[in-house]
């Protein structure tokens, strides 16, 4: 079984988000990048399938050379090979088309994306890629078992869970729950050493125009200070919620 895990490099979850003075770009100065958390759940599930089913795990990202430390980390976690499609990701459609081209050159039985990236929150690459490749797709995926040629999956829905199955290949949007947080793999020294020997290949992108562009960014409006009520003044709080905020 061949697995592709699509990785997005995103600012660390604790990052304070700032934009450049002209508001045209995200301020990257001093920002630490990490594997998109949703993608990391997918990667861990893939490594477990490598251990249980002898799967071969390839990780891929669309980005410039600055993404390579993240790919090396994926290799240290246990991926067998890494690919970098050498271009700036322009929008979700652009990234999906780059991945589509890769999936047509090499065939994969299982393609894992994250349910969304924590930077642009588009949640679109998995669904677009699946549609472009005409493959079944399950997003918000919180369960995956492979049984021969069949994938048995669970999708988290509003107020419940949907159980599905499909023949491989399938495309998934991973999230927390696909593996437990405590089961995420932290690279050890052996893994880090081995990662240096594993292949990291740079692929040329396909020429393509994006379908959207960001004109500028804005930060959320600063909020006023909190109104505090004394422990003995629960009535004061309820009064404010009822008559001032009008939410009760």
């Amino acid at each position, binding site marked *: 079984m061949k697995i592709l895990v699509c990785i997005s490099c995103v600012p660390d979850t604790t990052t304070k988000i700032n934009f450049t003075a002209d508001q045209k770009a995200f301020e990257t100065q001093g920002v630490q990048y990490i594997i998109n958390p949703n993608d990391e759940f997918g990667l861990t599930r893939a490594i477990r399938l490598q251990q249980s089913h002898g799967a071969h795990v390839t990780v891929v990202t669309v980005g410039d050379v600055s993404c390579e430390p993240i790919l090396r980390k994926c290799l240290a976690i246990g991926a067998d090979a890494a690919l970098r499609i050498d271009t700036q990701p322009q929008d979700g459609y652009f990234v999906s088309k780059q991945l589509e081209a890769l999936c047509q050159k090499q065939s994969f039985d299982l393609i894992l994306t994250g349910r969304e990236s924590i930077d642009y*929150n588009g949640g679109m690459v998995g669904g677009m890629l*699946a549609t472009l490749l005409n493959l079944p797709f399950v997003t918000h995926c919180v369960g995956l078992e492979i049984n021969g040629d069949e994938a048995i999956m669970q999708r988290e829905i509003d107020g419940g*869970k949907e159980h599905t199955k499909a023949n491989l290949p399938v495309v998934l949007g991973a999230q927390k729950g696909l593996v437990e947080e405590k089961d995420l793999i932290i690279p050890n020294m052996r893994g880090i050493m081995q990662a240096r020997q594993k292949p990291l290949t740079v692929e040329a992108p396909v020429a393509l125009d994006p379908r959207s562009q960001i004109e500028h960014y804005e930060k959320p409006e600063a909020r006023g200070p909190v109104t*505090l009520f004394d*422990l003995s003044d629960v009535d004061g709080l309820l009064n404010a919620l009822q008559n001032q905020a009008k939410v009760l």
Partner: protein
Amino acid sequence: MAVVTFIETHNGKASKASLELLSYGRSMAAATSASLVAVIFSDSDTQELKDHGADVIYTVDTASDSYFNLERYSTTLAEISALEKATLVVVSSSSEGRYLGPSLAVKTEATYLSNAVALPTAYNPFTVKQSCFTNKGFAISESLSSSTVLSLSSNSFGIHPQPGRGEVKTHPYASTQSKLEVTKVEHAQESISIADADIVVSGGRGLKGPEHWHLIEDLASTLGAATACSKPVSDLGWRPHSEHVGQTGKPVASNLYIAIGISGAIQHLAGINASKVKVVINNDPEAPFFKAADYGIVGDAFEVVPVLIEKLKALKKA
């Protein structure tokens, strides 16, 4: 020209998010002299859709398919969009809406823009404000195609009923062979989902253990609210993952969010930031959540919450 909306129903009634879509779509249709088209995949109250702004209502009989089917729904919507020469298709931020949007955009060769939080600022090129960086920023984005599929952030526009023409049509359900088979759908016990709730009551590690969760549940049931929790609480296994709200959990965009015993880590705040009014109850006056909240009580949850429940019950009776 048309603005097409994907309407989701529960027990024959349009969901709150779908009615919000109609209000949002009504405004866009008015601005572009387009008609507002509503598409429903079930027997539903079409009068309600007319009252909320639909000019044309397509009902699609899914008969054999009792579950949401990504391929058949998206193909059907693509057909209707082509028929109506839609320049805009709007879906909600529900699990179905955001599942459908990207696939539909590929099928209709449209641009997909997610998490719109306001009406477009321009229609040529189509320009709209989207939330990004998990509500820590906004992107003002332009569509570079002639048509756009848009997902609307829930509770960002509100419901403003304004009647439409309400002409009812039927459209056949796409016969696409589905590659994915739904075997079962489980619905959780809780009556109100986080996505639908006007009020969310959320508990953190300050509650000291799962045995104290009756405080959260009692407060939630008094308020008719959904229950949620912080990441450490779900990681510790006190509560199921499905209740985890925050950057890597579920997003919350309720009218009122009450955080009890949650310190307010930046990842948590990002996930709940779209809520309109935030109340914090925490015994640590230095908890970062107080900087992000509208109202707060510095105090022990075990003292405050029972009083709050009692007073709310009295208030309801009055």
